[in-house]
């Protein structure tokens, strides 16, 4: 049987999820393409990391979002177990600070019920402060959504891609799509900087660039513009909320969230700043944006720590599509071209549901009958984290490899063994350029109180050794971000 060749453009949470779901089928040959050196480095890298409840999206205005968010939430409960993705199901409170806010909460509650969200209710002041004692005393009540959770977004993408690759998906990293070949109204393949990738089906999951990719196929009815959100993360030990705290939403945004992210750090953000379509790489933090987040967060969480307790600020971009709803469909004019575009919030939540939606589109709209593999492995084992192990378990591992007993990142207790395993997993999914970020996203090294000033030089040594490159050629985040310019005498020699 000839296999149907599928090229997925974009190895973010959406593309990765699609790759995993399509890896279940015997008659598909799945290629996952991304221009970055590693997976999940676009939109998926920087966001609020929330598995939303599904009450927020109006099914009349945004039917795709409304349908896929709640379905995605339910699927994540299964995926985090199968793939051992770090997660917490802590619930969310959408807080009313003014009497008028209750009207909006009622709307959300009704909408949630319509979308099929279970377990929601409006709680009064008494119950609210039992759920969240540190909340502002100005709070009057809240909508309580217990099914909300949080995950590590990049660890999730990595886990999904590892599982997809284990099930036969081929990755093409550092591969930038330059064109799409269409013949007689059917897609033929993808032109890239690394050659031509033949394809019968092309799935456009290119995040911020989905409009540009679509145009390469002659589809130009939508545009994506970036919406920037900025965040603060504070040092460990700073008290944060147990639940995800939202303000009552506005028409453009769910508002500035206060949460304790899964590593236990207080995190606040994002604001929402619309950027012109050409600023798709603008992830710079700004004074104004961070100030806005600070002020917004303070309304819900008055006990913000001193500014010196910040360990990191960052900005992420959400891809805002024309019309506001997810664009998930097989394009009629170009047979085999499926857009999965405009996956803005709640994209992370919806990703697994989007993947099943795409499988359905392939069957229903392209008429390809999908044949399930007899043996498909749904499981993936989480990378070893020294900090999560008992001392007995460490000692078992040390017998196999002494590197598991040696700490490289002091703040987060990351062992050399953890890092070696990260490198092994990087190579497994095809990461060609060694980068500190690839290690960071797998192990948490460099993300603690000191932000890597002790461990980065040691990680550089390990990466240089394992990848067989000079230490100064090791990068922070791919080519063009090398950590040095040569050996220490390079300038003195006049090179």
């Amino acid at each position, binding site marked *: 049987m000839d296999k149907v060749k599928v090229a997925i453009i974009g190895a973010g949470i959406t593309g990765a999820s699609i790759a995993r779901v399509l890896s279940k089928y015997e008659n598909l040959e799945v290629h996952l393409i991304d221009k970055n050196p590693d997976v999940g480095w676009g939109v998926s890298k920087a966001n609020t990391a929330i598995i939303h409840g599904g009450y927020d999206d109006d099914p009349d205005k945004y039917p795709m979002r409304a349908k896929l968010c709640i379905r995605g939430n339910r699927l994540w409960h299964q995926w985090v177990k199968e793939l051992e993705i770090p997660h917490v199901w802590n619930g969310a409170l959408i807080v009313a600070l003014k009497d008028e806010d209750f009207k909006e909460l009622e709307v959300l509650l009704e909408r949630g019920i319509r979308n099929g969200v279970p377990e929601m209710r409006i709680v009064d002041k008494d119950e609210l402060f039992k759920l969240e004692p540190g909340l502002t005393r100005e709070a009057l009540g809240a909508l309580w959504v217990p099914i909300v959770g949080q995950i590590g977004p990049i660890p999730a993408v990595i886990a999904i891609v590892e599982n997809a690759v284990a099930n036969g998906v081929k990755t093409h990293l550092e591969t930038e799509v330059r064109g799409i070949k269409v013949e007689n109204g059917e897609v033929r393949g993808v032109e890239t900087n690394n050659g031509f990738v033949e394809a019968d089906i092309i799935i456009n999951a290119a995040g911020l660039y989905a409009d540009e990719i679509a145009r390469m196929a002659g589809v130009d009815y939508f545009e994506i513009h970036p919406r920037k959100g900025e965040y603060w993360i504070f040092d460990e030990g700073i008290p944060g909320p147990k639940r995800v705290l939202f303000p009552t939403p506005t028409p453009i945004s769910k508002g500035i969230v206060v949460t304790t992210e899964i590593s236990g750090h207080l995190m606040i953000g994002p604001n929402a700043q619309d950027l012109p379509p050409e600023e798709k790489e603008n992830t710079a933090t700004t004074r104004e944006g961070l100030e806005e987040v600070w002020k917004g967060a303070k309304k819900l969480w008055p006990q913000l720590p001193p500014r010196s307790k910040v360990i990191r600020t960052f900005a992420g971009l959400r891809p805002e599509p024309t019309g506001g709803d997810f664009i998930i469909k097989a394009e009629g004019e170009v047979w085999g071209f499926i857009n999965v575009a405009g996956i803005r919030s709640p994209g992370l939540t919806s990703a697994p549901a989007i993947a099943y939606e795409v499988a359905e589109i392939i069957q229903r709209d392209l008429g390809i009958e999908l044949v399930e593999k007899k043996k498909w492995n749904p499981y993936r084992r989480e990378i070893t984290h020294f900090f999560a192990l008992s001392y007995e378990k460490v000692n078992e591992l040390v*017998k196999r490899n002494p590197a598991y*007993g040696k700490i490289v990142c002091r703040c987060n207790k990351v062992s050399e063994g953890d890092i070696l395993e990260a490198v092994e997993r990087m190579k497994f999914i095809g990461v060609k350029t060694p980068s500190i970020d690839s290690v960071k996203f797998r192990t948490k090294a460099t993300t603690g109180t000191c932000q890597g000033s002790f461990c980065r030089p040691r990680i550089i040594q390990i990466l240089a050794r394992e990848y067989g490159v000079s230490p100064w050629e090791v990068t922070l985040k791919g080519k*063009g971000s090398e950590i040095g310019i040569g050996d220490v005498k390079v300038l003195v020699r006049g090179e």
Partner: protein
Amino acid sequence: MYDVVVIGGGPAGMAATIRAKELGLKVLLLDDNDYLGGILLQCIHPGFGIHYFKEELTGPEFAYRLMNKLDGVEVKTSARVLEIINYSDLEKFVVFTSPEGVQKVSTKTIIYTAGARERHAFEIGIVGDRVAGIYTAGEAQTLMDIYGIMPGKEIVIVGSGDVGLIMARRFSLEGAKVKAVIELMPYPGGLARNIMILKDFNIPLYLSHKVVEVRGRGRVEKIKVVKVDENLREISGTEFWIEADTLVISAGLIPNVKLLTEIGVVIDPSTGGPIVNDRLETSVPGIFVAGNALLINDLVDYVAEQGELAAEGAKEFIENGGIPSKRWIRLVKGENIRLLAPHYLSGERDVWIYARVARPMEDVVVEFVEIGKKIKLPVVKPAEMLRIKLRAKEISKAEDKITMKVVKHE
């Protein structure tokens, strides 16, 4: 059971170990690096040991001299302490991991000499792109002097403290162009001898300025600087950009005290290190602290001296089953004293007082109010630690506290 477990094999830890050994104590020295010496090994410039060894040495030479005295001491490197368990006032457990696995040892006392960490770009409010080429000064120094990596060629340094100035020289000597040193305060932060470096290498120093933003794609490309007024508020309209591929942050050190705070050791917010008595004992009996984990020192000689003091404290502790209770006299901060240690004095022995002023002043008197002690000094600077000996007899004149202050000489 050990008499002492020393955590940290830099100068304070090695000096503490050597002294403890001399005092006949059974010692274990732990360090999480692959080698002893701590930060000294990357400090390849001279200027070390003038007080302690009475000659001028480089960092590695200073470290080597101490290492040579460690014969017969049990030392474990690549050994990271995970946990200190305060089992009783006379017995503690230290849990550490190394390539041999996780081990737990018991000890009567602990001397904690884990040094400090550097403040990083996010802590000082720098915004913009997250790109390669942003290093703390110590990290850049490690890259260059331990691993032989040249980080970049056009350098901007934040902070005119000693570490920043020494790195300015280091970069210049390796052929890089140091385009500016940016200092927030209206005066330079380093020792006088290090400020000379700027003249030697023609490096512009911008006082009352701060770096606010970094932009670039893969690497640092340009750095935004702004002038500040006397209240450190930014003056709008004074912004300018410097093109550079590397930003080095030398914005101060913070004692590494996480393991101590986990067992309830009380921290002095002004030093960032523990509150200690004149034996350098913390608020948890039998746990002593020395070096930059106690307070940020400017000379390694003082660091080593504190290590020895802590070892003597451990000896007294072991001999007496605890430091005997006494009438502790508090040493408190008065005018123009930003930080000081130790915080409690017994009056039974002479004590070195370590302190820093908040702002520079000329022609001053350092006064210990309640005991009437006065010392005239031509100049005091925040960068230069005051180290003053108080005699037992002087201390015991105080009722319950001694206030240290720095005032204009009249």
